[in-house]
């Protein structure tokens, strides 16, 4: 145990751990808000069990003077809130960690290799009015440690608890105060010193999580209809849009099951809405037949799928990237689709918007593939681009000669909607004639198949290229997709290997033609993926003809940490790939 002051410079990793219902989330939200206002860069993510009370959940908050957007294993400060927290966090505890906790509640071991500092969170809470106030003591304590002026915290407290009774607010204020007092003592005792530059002009950043970013992107895409069946970790998008349904006049419907949800969405698009569903792998598996219906009937569709570990129910509140194949090959028969996998919150908004646009323009099914880690991660952003102009609606007024599936060179037929014009809009699940009626004419069949498949070429032309971090001509290319992007990026930054560049994909299908050039330059390709079989590596091999020489895979239900990626890549690199 090390008793000299621990000095933390410019990048603090702070962890709160306790049971569901213990109020970690309030501490987190309070802190994150106030620290963002102070001008720090803030990043937070959490991991939690599939239960409503108890268990062990944790939140990791990074407070930094430069943007950090990835989870680290390292804990500079840990606040355990109950007696299971230390065991739960054991794999991440190190000699560097300073643990602040209520000795009686937390029961730290005597022989720990890390420093434990007794702060009477629980005892003091009971004095104030009950155990529930422990979390505001912790909030005050941490705000104090970070040097936030007490008055600022107090004023946030009032807006934070607006609506609560005066008595509750008074007690929370007392708890906050008490936290500040404890912080002052700790600072006095020179146990820890936190030195992180503030950026005055950053106060005013946008603070959102992945679910909000997708939902805001949907609004930017003109979403006016969402049907869904709740399923972790995808429900946040539904909840957010439900919350906006009055202001934005969105039709929000919780369906009886996923099959109903997607069929409602298709009905809505058919009638001219811009609709989406949000689900996870198991829910999406149920939607596949209707995806195929969207394919044959050329009904646009936007599907947000937040991945979690499978098979089946798997780990309901954990993360994984193992539903890429599911989405790539979903639905009987053959038809094109487009799949985005945002790596950053900015991308999540922009790509969800783009999903609406492509679905509408090409009458295809567009996926936004995220995961639990991404949904539950938030950080500060300077701005969020929602497009300069509203997206056009790609429908046209019909006349009597209208034929829904007119064969055109590029494969897209003008889309009419019922009631808009004199034409009739006939959409069909069977193979059909140009006017949408069921046919068994076997000459028409291949023409219609080809028409539908031609749209894949259009999607290919519009495909977004991967992003390169580092030297484009580097010998070794590390590839990743979706939510792992900022994690691998920070890891590579930490590794200082000029011979390695990162090629990260936020569009995973169809792949941009530029991929070939970008990866063609590398002598070796290493993939980082959150699954057990390297699904994206296989796609790269299949679509681009490149072999992936090394794979860093993770499938224990947690996202990668920066340290894990550094360690894993170093190992692979040292093995000469």
């Amino acid at each position, binding site marked *: 145990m090390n008793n000299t002051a621990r000095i933390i410079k410019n990048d603090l990793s702070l962890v709160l751990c306790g049971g569901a219902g213990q109020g970690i989330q309030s501490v987190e939200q309070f802190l994150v808000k106030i620290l963002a206002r102070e001008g720090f860069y803030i990043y937070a993510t959490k991991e939690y069990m599939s239960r409503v009370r108890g268990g062990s959940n944790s939140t990791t908050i990074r407070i930094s003077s430069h943007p950090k957007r990835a989870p680290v294993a390292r804990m500079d400060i840990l606040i355990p809130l109950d007696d299971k927290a230390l065991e739960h966090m054991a794999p991440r505890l190190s000699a560097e960690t300073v643990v602040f906790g209520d000795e009686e509640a937390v029961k730290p071991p005597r022989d720990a290799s890390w420093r434990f500092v007794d702060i009477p969170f629980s005892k003091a809470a009971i004095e104030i009015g009950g155990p529930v106030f422990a979390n505001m003591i912790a909030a005050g304590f941490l705000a104090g440690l970070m040097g936030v002026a007490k008055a600022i915290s107090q004023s946030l407290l009032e807006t934070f608890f607006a609506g609560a009774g005066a008595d509750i607010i008074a007690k929370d204020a007392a708890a906050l105060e008490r936290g500040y007092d404890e912080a002052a003592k700790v600072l006095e005792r020179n146990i820890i010193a936190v030195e992180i530059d503030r950026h005055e002009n950053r106060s005013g950043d946008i603070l959102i999580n992945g679910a909000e970013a997708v939902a805001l992107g949907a609004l930017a895409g003109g979403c*006016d209809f969402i049907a869904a069946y709740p399923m972790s970790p995808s429900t946040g998008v539904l909840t957010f849009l439900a919350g906006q349904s009055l202001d*934005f006049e969105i039709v929000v419907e919780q369906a*009886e099951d996923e099959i109903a949800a997607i069929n409602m*969405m298709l009905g809505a698009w058919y009638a001219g809405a811009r609709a989406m569903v949000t689900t996870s792998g198991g829910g999406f598996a149920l939607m596949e037949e209707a995806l195929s219906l969207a394919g044959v009937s050329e009904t646009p569709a936007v599907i947000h799928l937040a991945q979690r570990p499978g098979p089946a129910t798997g780990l309901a509140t954990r993360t994984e990237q193992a539903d890429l194949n599911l989405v790539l090959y979903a639905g009987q028969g053959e038809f094109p689709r487009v799949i985005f996998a945002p790596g950053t919150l900015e991308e999540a908004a922009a790509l969800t918007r783009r999903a609406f646009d492509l679905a509408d323009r090409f009458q295809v099914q567009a996926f936004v593939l995220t995961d639990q880690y991404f949904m539950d991660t938030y950080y500060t952003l300077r701005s969020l681009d929602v497009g300069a102009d509203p997206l056009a609606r790609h429908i046209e007024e019909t006349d009597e000669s209208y034929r829904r599936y007119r064969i055109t060179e590029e494969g897209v037929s003008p889309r009419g909607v019922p009631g808009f014009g004199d034409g*009739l809009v006939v959409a069909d*699940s069977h193979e059909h004639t140009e006017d949408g009626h069921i046919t068994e004419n076997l000459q028409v069949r291949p023409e219609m198949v080809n028409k539908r498949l031609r749209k894949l070429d259009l999607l290919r032309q519009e495909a977004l290229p991967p992003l390169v971090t580092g030297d484009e001509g580097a010998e070794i290319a590390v590839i990743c997709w979706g939510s792992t992007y900022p994690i691998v990026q920070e890891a590579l930054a930490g590794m200082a290997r000029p011979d390695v560049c990162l090629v990260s994909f936020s569009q995973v299908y169809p792949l941009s033609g530029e991929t070939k050039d970008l990866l063609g330059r590398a002598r070796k390709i290493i993939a980082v993926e959150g699954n057990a079989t390297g699904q994206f590596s296989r796609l790269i091999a299949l679509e681009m003809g490149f072999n992936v020489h090394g794979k860093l895979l993770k499938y224990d239900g947690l996202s990668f940490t920066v340290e894990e990626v550094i360690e894993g890549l170093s190992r692979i690199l040292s093995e000469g790939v």
Partner: protein
Amino acid sequence: MGQFDAIGKEISWCPGCGNFPILNALKSALEGRELKPRDVVLVSGIGQAAKLPHYMIANVFNGLHGRSLPVATGIKAANPGLTVIAVSGDGCMYGEGGNHFLHAIRRNPDITMIVNNNMVYGLTKGQASPTSPLGLKTPIQIEGVTEIPFNPVAIAIAAGASFVARSFAGDADRTRKLIDMAIGHKGFALVDIFQPCVSFNKVNTYQWFKDNTYAIEDSHDAGDPMAAMALALREDRLPLGLFYRREGRSSFEETLPAFRRDKRPLYDRPMDLSRLRKLIDKKRTAR
């Protein structure tokens, strides 16, 4: 020649099929209501009955087996001005689609659900359907059906449907009239129609339906759920007509905030980016 008539269309039903008179009844009900084909959307699933929309002039969404109701609901919720009619077979609506039937009733969108109930799977060649009578022998149910026939009328009433009726394809006038009333009803309306399948159901023939059905007495109070239920549970002879109607309940679309201030269909609304920018600004952490 009405405006809903598709002239010269080849119809792939068997000669004598009970679907023909239902098609006619639907067309004449629509004519009678002075609707235009462009304002009507027919939604169907898959099966013999589900081909019906292809034999009319109207907007059509012919979707998946069992899934016409959610599609119809989505259409209605995106454009409440359309007249939306879901029409399909008993297997489609009560078998594969049973869950949507239950929940569409709860949701109460202003759509009409027409079920061509031939008590058999026609298109797939004669397996039992949920409404097949006990004892019906089929290539799968080789010793005869043992599962209790699905009683759509009773279940609809129990589930709180706001309009529940039954007809018989052989009774053209009643069929037209009930479809007309169902379309006129605000809210979810079920019209279950006994439909002889001359190819696969040799038990429930035109004659059988004539012999085993009767018109609900004028004295029946269609506003009384228990009276409706008593009729629905009759097994000796099967009542035809309006079992139950409850007026005044809001339709699904009426409960949607999206149409509270603005009655336009969703496709006809401009996008407002400034509203979105304001929302994003609310997510800023500035003091």
